[in-house]
């Protein structure tokens, strides 16, 4: 990859060794999720919004989402589109600061060991590599 310096000369840019699967996952030493939070009412969104869907105000700040959560619902998915490994545990968790997140529960020996109300914690793991060797990092939740 080639970028341009401020003085106009080309400079080689280091290819990142990994990328987050979505832009609301922040990698590094302290992986976590971020959300666009309405300054007025605190409603959080993982994507961009023109106005808050709850209160209609238009100012947002970036907010860190808690890594600790409680599992509110799940499904053990046995049938999926071709190429997606099954079974896997899809879950809706609610973080300790009140944000709902959809992700897989990972690290269970048996998918049916998943339990409503279980305490979970955010984790990250590699879920694929592209042609130039960049690893895709996904997030999921493990039993806490």
């Amino acid at each position, binding site marked *: 990859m080639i970028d341009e310096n401020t003085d106009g000369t080309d400079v080689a840019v280091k290819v990142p060794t990994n990328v987050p699967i979505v832009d609301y996952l922040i990698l590094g030493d302290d992986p976590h999720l971020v959300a666009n939070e309405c300054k007025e009412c605190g409603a*959080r969104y993982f994507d961009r919004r023109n106005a808050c869907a709850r209160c209609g105000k238009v100012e947002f700040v970036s907010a860190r989402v808690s890594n600790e959560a409680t599992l509110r619902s799940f499904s053990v998915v046995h049938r999926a589109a071709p190429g997606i490994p099954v079974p896997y545990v899809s879950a809706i968790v609610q973080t300790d600061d009140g944000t709902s997140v959809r992700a897989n529960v990972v690290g269970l020996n048996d998918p049916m060991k998943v339990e409503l109300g279980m305490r979970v914690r955010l984790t990250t793991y590699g879920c694929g590599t592209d042609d130039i060797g960049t690893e895709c990092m996904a997030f999921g939740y493990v039993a806490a």
Partner: protein
Amino acid sequence: MGDAVWVLGASMTRFGRYPDLDSVDLAAQACMDALADGGTTIHDMDVLAAGSLFQPPGMGQRVQKQIGQTGIPVYNVTNACATGATALRLVYMAIKAGEAQMGLAFGVEQMGKMGLLRGGSKEEANVYEPSGRHGAVTAVDGILGTETMPGVFAQAGMEYAYENEGVGFEQFARVAFKNHQHSTLNPLAQYRKEFTMEEIMSSPVQSYPNTLLMCCPTGDGAAAAILVSEERLRSLPIDVRKRAVKISASVLTSDPWVESGQVQPDVNTLTRNAAAQAYEAAGVGPEDLDLVELHDCFATAELIHYDNLGLCERGGAGEFIDSGGPFRDGRTPVNVSGGLISKGHPIGATGVANVYEVTTHLRGEAGDRQIKGARVGLAHVIGLGSACGIHILEKSAA
């Protein structure tokens, strides 16, 4: 009184698979039958609303070419699984607004064997580049939870199980047991086979707790209804008039904001809101309903709608199914047609077909599956995104 809108005619094709027909054929058949059922022709119609989700554009105009091009306004409607109900309500609104005296609404879908809905295929990108509203570098279905319909509705049901006692795999399975059993009496159902609880619970898991026999099939079919103003109805012959059924409430809602809505569709709040508005408009309560056709795309969905529609105590959906409440001989028969699970769910047709079903019972013309003496019924659909349509129908004298 005096400005109500009535169902004058209604019809549906049997739901199933029609590889030798196309969606225009199916819709035209339902429309011709509904027009004849109401003692009318296309030349009596002031407005046409056509509902379909996966068909090519211009469905209403293409059906006109089959049944009569009279130059009336045509509205092509799409609103997820609430498409048919939305088309019906559009005609209702045109009559309410005084712009039409009589109108035709139809819904149609030809899905063939589409298989699993939603959930992208996993394609490994050559070079990861963020795209879309979440800057995703690859398809996230199956990695960040599920986007498949059986899974999304499984999660909706399991959240209810988390919040309420007495709800689990067995209660969800019993919903499917009931609807398969009901469908054996309905000649228009796609499937008419009874299954044991054991067969339902041991059929292949799609998305736990939804097994194959707890999921609606894909299929083909159409349904149509003729609506008429009260004023115009009164000018019609007595034998036509006495079969008309009154629409006591027609409601459409969408999602209000809820915290979890951005990651998991909330099928509850908008259904509760629609139900409250519909009961208020009709001046009836859930205890007055003689039958309900509700949106059982999956067994997990039907169970939570018992609660959302007020058919049981708050939190009491498990007890309601366990005590037999929604069976055809129970307190409030639910999905005596077999429901989406067994009657089938050609998406655009569903919201008109359940109005056909309720209408047929209120007319006392439902044959073997007739709920005796039915006077008030409710038809409910929900489309993810979301849209909820509720119609309350009453047997009444015009």
